[in-house]
């Protein structure tokens, strides 16, 4: 049969001669390679102290966004939940009462919002589906915990800090992702 490429080489199966049998040359070759690596750039970093730059499309843990006045953007429209292929998002909606206008941006809001991070596959479809810029995938990743139940993220885990009351924490959480205007 004709071969597809001309790169096929027959492996030589000849018995080794005396010099090859004592392995001195092979060991020296190997040591040379090992020694050479001391002068090369290290591919690893000291992770928790140093972090690598993120790709602009990196998809980490979710954050629920607030507007510039600190009101929650989410209106519990359910589009993220219906878009979610892993069915990780659930929510319960409530009507905003008179006097809660500074808390919620729209007439309806998510009284409960839950993401099951054990189910989430970080595909980012929720972010794409959101009509209110309410959910973003941040650059935070690798959450670690001892218990499974800690991975059911409720609103208190997901909501971004208040931009007026805690501007520094807000800026840190927003990172480069959240497009909302940052006051002062």
């Amino acid at each position, binding site marked *: 049969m004709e071969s597809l490429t001309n790169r096929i080489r027959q492996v030589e199966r000849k018995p080794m001669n005396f010099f090859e049998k004592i392995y001195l040359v092979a060991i020296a070759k190997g040591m040379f390679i090992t020694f050479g690596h001391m002068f090369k750039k290290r591919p690893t970093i000291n992770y928790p102290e140093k972090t690598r730059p993120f790709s602009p499309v990196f998809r980490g843990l979710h954050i629920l966004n607030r507007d510039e006045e600190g009101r929650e953007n989410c209106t519990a429209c359910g589009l993220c939940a219906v878009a979610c292929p892993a069915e990780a998002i659930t929510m319960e909606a409530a009507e905003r009462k008179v006097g809660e206008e500074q808390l919620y941006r*729209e007439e309806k809001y998510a009284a409960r919002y839950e993401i099951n991070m054990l189910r989430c596959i970080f595909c980012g479809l929720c972010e794409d589906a959101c009509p209110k810029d309410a959910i973003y995938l941040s650059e935070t990743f690798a959450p670690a915990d001892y218990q499974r*139940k800690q991975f059911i993220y409720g609103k208190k885990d997901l909501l971004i800090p208040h931009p007026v009351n805690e501007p520094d924490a807000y800026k840190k959480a927003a990172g480069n992702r959240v497009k909302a205007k940052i006051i002062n």
Partner: protein
Amino acid sequence: MPIRSGFQKQYKKSDSIYYMADEIKTATATFKVTIDNITIDVAPGTSILQAARIIGGDVTPPAMCYYSKLQGSGGKCRTCLVEVAAGSTADPRPMPKLVASCRTNVMDGMIVKNITSEKVTDARNGVVEFLLINHPLDCPICDQAGECHLQDLGYEHGKAGTRYEFARRTFAKEDIGPYIQLHMTRCILCYRCTFVADQITDSRVHGIVDRGDHAAISTYISKAIDNDFSGNMIDVCPVGALTDKTFRFKNRVWFTKPVDAHRNCSNPKCCGKATLWLRGNEVFRVTARKDEWGEVQSYDGKTGWICNTCRFDSKKTSDWTIEGLTQISRHSVLGANKYKTLEMPKETLPAVLKGRSPKLMMNIHNVSEVNNPNIELSAINGPSHSEDFERSAEHVKGAGESTQWGMKK
């Protein structure tokens, strides 16, 4: 030629225009009409829209205000505009302007263009733009989203942006009773609800007040609508202007599962056949059954309106006899993410493990605050508020502490 015989029969019985045409006794028994190159024989006195509905499919013009079960409806929204390329065999001149197909009757030898006409598509895009001038884009909040006719229309014909630069029409919020939520900003003034009140209920207390741009659906002196059949306006409303207050913000329609059910209603005018919108075994909402045009279905020539007792006060599965799943178009979001059966899928593991149930690493209901099986959101009469959730949070806290791998945290 695809004729939907079932629908034709139902239409002939129910529509009064047909009987009117019988009295005229025209020479030909049927009129031949060609819509988008499909020829069909229809009874004299049939409107172009009805003839197109007999053909069905894409040929049918959309209708926002016309409702075949309500006399006098139609002619207001102009979404059903079609081009008449030839008036009739006797007078084959085309009609000079696009005509509203719900209000124009067919003639023998009429040639109608709907989707094959560029003029019609262009005009319909314009009509949708006009309808959306004052309609707010609050679909994320609106309970009608997912089954809204204007949403479908906007999706097919609408533009991505708006050219309108002025303030949108707004109204002071008005309470029209404990069952129906009125959002006047969303209203497109189709008048369907007023026809319902006139033709189905005994006394109409609401109507259109003011004129032109100020026209609004309202009740005089804010009189609450309390009539046994007032709930049917929710079903006829093509947009989210009139929605079910007992279902308000409870759930999105596409997360609820529609099933057909019936009950023996004591009200003689009520047909007792309805669609229940379930989540688990909870009845979140009851509506009348809809046909393929989004209108309330007819049974034996009678339109299947349902009374308020069935709609608002029968929110238990024990009140109803469930017949089966409602058929949903597979293109509709309403059928997304659901098992297409009535029974819950069986637990497979106990059968494989010889009756032993598997050791769960975590029961989601012990941790999750959402969808708690002990809390029936549907039991709250109206939208839930922050204090409802504060109360149930305490409840969940007690439940969550019980077993997490058998230890307390």
